[in-house]
């Protein structure tokens, strides 16, 4: 893998050139000419010219060239996809000038080959994806200047090669055909120059008022350049104000830190040194929790039962994948966690024996691990819980060992709710003349009581400018909408969870007329010519003290981070202990009280797949089965089994949720392990203007969410409506116990003590190797024999592998209806099983790629030899040969084969053509497909080693650096792949472990993918309770 600096300005990819090869006698129209013809028209005139154009013969012809099938496709009620596709074509036509200006050039070979460009060989560039201000360092694979795949940056401490689902899926956002493509004023298309001149007037006027009427609303900004730009602007216009809002924010964390330390500090953890970890409602192993990628790596490394295995206690209000990995999990309502925390704190410090067995056992465990334990509080827990977590960590001597404090990475760590409230107050008061909203979607996700959407609709603010990637709910309400460039199209910088700055570099010219926040702020400051590149570079030039800026800059871009920017741990003493206002004294009184809330608690949680709604239009994420429910395309009203029984609610039932006088309706999901008398709803759904993929999915719970109760509150009411609604879950049955009462040994699990006693416990079903009439193929004569092992102990169910696989292998999105029918296409799935009482079960995650069986049942039954065994042990799938009898899938005991029941791939949308991995066939209708162990990567590595062998004159073999996509993205290092013929390969070492077992081994399929059984490390004192 080569990591190259992004030296040259990316040229338009030759593949993107429109192959307009059909010469006709008539005058030909193309989009560029159409654009020219209507460029200078506005409003009604613009529409008229469109109509005139539409009537002309040339236009009709162009239409059919541009949208060959989409324009004249017969719509049938059956295919929602087809409908949507055609809708897309019509929508794109509605804003004709918005289409990409495709260079009308011939495709000719290079006369002079550009340096370092080898067609067919991808290049990798380091950049960073940001979520909630936190940067996820990534390497982006680029095929002939088209970004195609996102990997973690193995050299960056926040990634170490792993990524998260959002970063992985962000590539699809880049090519989203629904992205806003033009600057618009009241819906009409304007040029960038028109925008600049239009706002220069109001900005001049503001200048004289010292910016008194200017308000900038951003999301969390960790970009040093952007922060400096805004600060500079504010310095020049002291009356202007900078507000920050994001629906999923860390207000509680900041307030908690203030409570404990008197200042906002960033807390980060070192899980590699923690023997005992206590999570107070913190889902720290799932994307969206700052640092989760690194935490997952460190956590998983400590799950090795043969070494010093850690122990995880999770006290949580909503079942999470982190909770399911816990050795002890305690489901309690969110409001009761404060009591639990203070109980724990008191028992620890005052040596008062706790009144619960759980707490006293936990206290003992913590006390025997002073300095190597860790308390993590969840973002949605109120500030006192965070303060208590700081106290306990300090009490246990963990600070400086497993817990570190630093400067906040947030450039403007104000309270989000208050900041937005202040803005709204100013708007009401008529103090705001120019409102600049830099991304986010406040009209959709602002606290309900602010009624921001109706305020934006009202003429209280004269000029509203919105920079956003999509024409969403907020864009609709602002006069000016500037399309925001994707992070793969623009320059910026951002800080990772540890403060390390990554320069965000583009890999492609903006596909549409996108601009970055840097450029907008520059316009505000009067520098309309500045480009993002210049701004970011200029900032770092100023920061750089050494001599050779060019080397520094190139190194920073190449490595993916700027050296020396990591925040050093700083001293912070929690000084609130004993103070009258600290939680401790208040909680002394509540230690014995049963619960803080009387009624039913309502929890708001970020959605595991689409976060706060910003990924609504991302098909990969919409169809990504959420780790516990395996739901796709919808959000449920999640309740516990006891509550469901009481309310006589079942799966599929639609219930009405009433809270604060507002009502929403949604389908009920009964989640094992959910606390009783508590409801969880997920943010981000029910969007009205997300795009073709996301609009209309699920129900919107933001109207229930206020800034008083952003995460949970008492007093919700749930009533059955009698209606039903099918939720599209990809796994209908989630236990290993069959309804007849017997249990299938799918995920094998023992406690650490049992494992020590019987290390081979998982191997019982393993068949004898000679259990066949036919001699096996002799692989020892081959150079390679591939195999995979998956450590179930490390797997945290983060779903990364699914998206990585989808991106690498061009896997289609099928939509809700098809998912309901059981036709999702994921080559790799993660099965989730529950075991034990429904109130508090154990959870298991089992990633399931193709097992590549040595005795593959699928190969035997294919009538046309479309699935065969390769000489390297792979179970190959020959798409061209497949006639689609589906016999192989029927006969596959693991059901890992996926069938194109309909034309699931989008063959029309030009953007998706750019996105696809050119090394992998795009499958069509009627063909079976499945995991190939990323055979294209094996081939690439083989070519490399063979060339190297010739070059070096000695044999060079593929080593462990060949990784499958799932393995590469896995933050937990739970997947290892390699050559079984190489005795030193990592995969052979894993397979030699006593925990290694074959799934359904008794069928004698001899899978090449094997599992390392799960071992938990429960506290012996709590065993059996």
């Amino acid at each position, binding site marked *: 893998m080569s990591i190259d600096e992004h030296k040259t300005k990316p040229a338009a990819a030759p593949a993107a050139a429109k192959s307009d090869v059909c010469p006709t006698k008539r005058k030909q129209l193309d989009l560029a000419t159409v654009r020219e013809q209507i460029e200078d028209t506005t409003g009604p005139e613009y529409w008229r010219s469109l109509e005139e154009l539409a009537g002309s013969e040339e236009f009709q012809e162009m239409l059919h060239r541009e949208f060959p099938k989409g324009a004249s496709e017969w719509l049938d009620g059956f295919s929602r996809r087809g409908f949507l596709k055609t809708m897309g074509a019509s929508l794109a036509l509605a804003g004709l000038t918005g289409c990409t200006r495709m260079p009308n050039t011939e495709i000719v070979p290079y006369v002079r080959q550009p340096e370092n460009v080898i067609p067919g060989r991808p290049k990798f560039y380091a950049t960073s994806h940001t979520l909630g201000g936190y940067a996820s360092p990534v390497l982006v694979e680029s095929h002939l200047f088209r970004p195609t795949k996102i990997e973690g940056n193995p050299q960056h401490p926040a990634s170490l090669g792993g990524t998260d689902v959002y970063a992985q899926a962000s590539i699809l956002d880049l090519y989203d055909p629904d992205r806003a493509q033009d600057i618009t004023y009241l819906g009409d298309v304007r040029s960038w120059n028109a925008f600049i001149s239009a706002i220069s007037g109001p900005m001049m006027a503001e200048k004289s008022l010292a910016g008194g009427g200017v308000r900038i609303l951003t999301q969390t900004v960790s970009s040093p350049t952007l922060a400096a730009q805004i600060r500079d602007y504010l310095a020049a216009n002291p009356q202007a104000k900078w507000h920050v809002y994001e629906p999923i924010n860390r207000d509680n964390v900041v307030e908690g830190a203030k409570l404990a330390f008197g200042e906002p500090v960033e807390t980060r953890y070192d899980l590699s040194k923690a023997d005992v970890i206590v999570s107070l409602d913190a889902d720290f192993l799932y994307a969206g929790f700052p640092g989760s990628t690194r935490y997952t790596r460190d956590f998983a490394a400590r799950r090795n039962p043969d070494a010093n295995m850690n122990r995880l206690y999770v006290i949580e209000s909503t079942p999470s994948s982190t909770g399911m990995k816990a050795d002890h999990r305690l489901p309690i309502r969110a409001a009761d966690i404060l009591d639990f925390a203070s109980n724990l704190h008191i028992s620890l410090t005052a040596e008062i024996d706790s009144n619960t067995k759980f707490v006293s056992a936990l206290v003992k465990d913590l006390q025997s691990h002073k300095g190597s334990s860790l308390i993590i509080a969840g973002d949605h827990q109120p500030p006192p819980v965070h303060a208590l977590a700081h106290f306990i960590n300090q009490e246990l001597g963990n600070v400086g060992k497993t817990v570190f404090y630093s400067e906040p990475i947030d450039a403007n760590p104000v309270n989000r709710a208050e900041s937005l409230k202040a803005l709204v107050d100013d708007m009401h008061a008529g103090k705001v003349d120019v409102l600049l909203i830099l991304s986010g979607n406040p009209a959709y996700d602002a606290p309900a009581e602010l009624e921001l959407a109706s305020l934006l609709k009202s003429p209280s603010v004269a000029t509203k400018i919105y920079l956003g990637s999509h024409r969403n709910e907020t864009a609709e309400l602002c006069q000016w909408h500037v399309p925001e460039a994707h992070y793969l199209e623009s320059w910026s910088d951002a800080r990772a969870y540890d403060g390390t700055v990554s320069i965000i570099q583009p890999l492609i010219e903006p596909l549409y007329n996108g601009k970055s926040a840097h450029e907008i702020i520059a316009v505000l400051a009067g520098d309309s010519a500045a480009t993002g590149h210049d701004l970011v570079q200029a900032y770092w030039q100023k920061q750089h003290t050494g001599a050779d800026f060019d080397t520094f800059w190139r190194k920073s871009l190449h490595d993916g981070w700027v050296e020396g920017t990591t925040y050093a741990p700083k001293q912070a003493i929690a000084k609130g202990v004993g103070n009258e206002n600290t939680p401790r004294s208040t909680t002394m009184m509540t230690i014995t009280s049963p619960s803080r809330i009387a009624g039913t608690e309502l929890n708001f949680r970020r959605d595991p797949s689409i976060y706060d709604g910003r990924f609504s239009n991302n098909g990969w994420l919409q169809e990504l089965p959420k780790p516990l429910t395996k739901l796709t395309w919808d959000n449920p009203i999640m309740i516990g089994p006891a509550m469901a029984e009481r309310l006589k609610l079942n799966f599929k039932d639609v219930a009405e949720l009433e809270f604060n006088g507002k009502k929403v309706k949604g389908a009920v999901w009964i989640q094992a392990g959910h606390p009783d008398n508590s409801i969880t709803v997920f943010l981000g759904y029910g969007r009205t203007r997300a795009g073709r993929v996301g609009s209309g999915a699920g129900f919107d719970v933001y109207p229930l969410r206020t800034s008083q109760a952003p995460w949970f509150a008492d007093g919700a009411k749930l009533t059955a409506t009698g209606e039903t609604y099918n939720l599209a879950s990809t796994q209908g049955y989630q236990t290993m116990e069959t*309804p*007849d009462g017997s249990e299938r040994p799918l995920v094998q699990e023992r406690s650490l003590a049992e494992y020590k006693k019987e290390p081979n416990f998982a191997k019982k079903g393993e068949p004898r190797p000679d259990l066949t009439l036919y001699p096996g193929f002799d692989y020892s004569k081959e150079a390679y024999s591939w195999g995979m092992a998956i450590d179930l102990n490390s797997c945290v169910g983060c779903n990364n592998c699914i998206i990585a696989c989808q991106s690498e292998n061009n896997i289609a999105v099928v939509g809700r209806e098809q998912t309901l029918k059981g*036709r999702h296409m994921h080559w790799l799935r993660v099965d989730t099983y529950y075991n034990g009482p429904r109130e508090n079960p154990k959870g298991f995650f089992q990633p399931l790629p193709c097992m590549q069986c040595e005795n593959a049942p699928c190969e035997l*039954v294919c009538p046309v030899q479309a699935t065969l065994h390769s000489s390297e042990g792979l179970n190959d799938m020959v798409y061209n040969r497949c006639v689609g*009898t589906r016999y192989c*899938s*029927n006969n596959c005991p693991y059901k890992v084969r996926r*069938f194109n029941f309909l034309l699931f791939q989008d063959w029309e949308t030009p953007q998706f053509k750019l996105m696809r991995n050119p090394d992998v066939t795009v499958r069509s209708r009627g063909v079976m497909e499945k995991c190939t162990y990323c055979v294209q990567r094996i081939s690439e590595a083989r070519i490399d080693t063979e060339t190297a062998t010739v070059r070096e004159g000695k044999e060079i073999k593929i080593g462990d650096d060949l990784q499958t996509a799932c393995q590469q993205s896995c933050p937990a290092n739970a997947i290892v792949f390699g050559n079984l013929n190489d005795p030193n390969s990592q995969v052979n070492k894993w397979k030699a472990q006593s925990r290694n077992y074959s799934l359904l081994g008794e*069928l004698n399929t001899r899978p090449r993918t094997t599992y390392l059984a799960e071992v938990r490390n429960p506290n012996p004192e709590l065993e059996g309770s």
Partner: protein
Amino acid sequence: MATNTQVPVDDRRVPVIAPGHTFSTITEKISNIVLTRPISLGWILGFLIVFGMMNMLMLALGYLFIKGTGIWGINIPIGWGFAIVNFVWWIGIGHAGTLISAILALLRQTWRNSINRFAEAMTLFAVACAGIFPLAHTGRPWLAYWLFPYPNTMRYWPNFRSPLVWDVFAVSTYLTISLVFWFVGLIPDLATLRDRAEKPWLQRTYGLLAMGWRGSAKHWHRYETAYLLLAGLATPLVLSVHTVVSFDFAVGIVPGWHTTIFPPYFVAGAIYSGFAMVLCLAIPIRAIYKLEDFITMRHLENSAKVMLATGLIVAYGYGMEAFMGWYSGNQFDSFLLWNRLHGPYRFFYAALLASNIFIPQVLWLKKFRVSTGWLWIISFVVLCGMWLERFIIIVVSLSRDFLTSSWGQYYPTKWDWMTFFGTIGLFLTGMWLFVRVLPMISIFELRTLLPESHAHEATEVKQ
């Protein structure tokens, strides 16, 4: 010569042909249905209905070819749904025709002469219906010919280890033999129609089809030899075709499929459903065309007895499946049994047991065997039951296999139903036309049942 011996007919039973018929009355009665009987309103109305159903099939298949198999209810894990259920069902129904015409001919069961012709036609149409499904169920039907081994430049060769390839041979052989057998059997009767037809175009059409048959001794000699040979060829097919079809399942490792009892159990089931279909067709036809003289209660009763016998074999098969589920101690097999009894498809299984095992037991009683109404109802019930059996084997087994995580549920779509009823339409359209354009009962073979045809034989015996 003077003795009034009825060689093939046992005095103690109902005769296979009513007394009082002569060569000419038989010829006249059967050929007149084709040649002189006016087309009734009922026939036209019925034809419109079944022809409409057939067109529904065309519509369903047309849409299927345009959109893909996703218009059906199949999914992962249930990769095979109605299409394969219908395929196995139709193939099974065809078996009765072959059994009647080939095996019973070899066994010299002359009573079959009255029913073999339309039973064979039924076989042909049933196999035609069945043949649609293997093609239509593939994801890329335009490439389904790759299942045939043929020389090509793609260096492509089918996988002879796959039961689906065996299926291709079994079904295509079956169709060919059935067609030839049926046509050879028709030749003497086509000549009769040629001779009796009055309209020139009819004479010419039948004449062409009769292939110059003049009824000479040499013709008859060759005919008899050819027929015997074809019967010999067709006989193993009765056993082999459904055996091979059962391999589609028995070779698979899905619990509920992977069982050695399938071949005999499938063959018995095929004959069971085939005779049910024969009765379902024969009873109304003989009433409408007043053929009670030729298709007598004796035929109906014999068919009922065959049904009873094969039904018991099928019941034994169910019993063994259940027993093995328990006796094997295999957790997947025992769950299979549990799931059939208690799972989401339990009502289907109960209906299957009722209609294939319990209800047909009334055939032990002569009262039911000789009542055309009851017989028809029971046959219909058996046909439904046998369809359910295939549904249970295919869909229910697939819906609950090894990994609980991949369990699924199957909901047929309107296209599934349209295709299924469409093939019934195709089948009935074929039968509808058949009864009007070809002699539905073999005239010359029926004539051999008359005492006159055995005069010499009888005399020789006496001497």
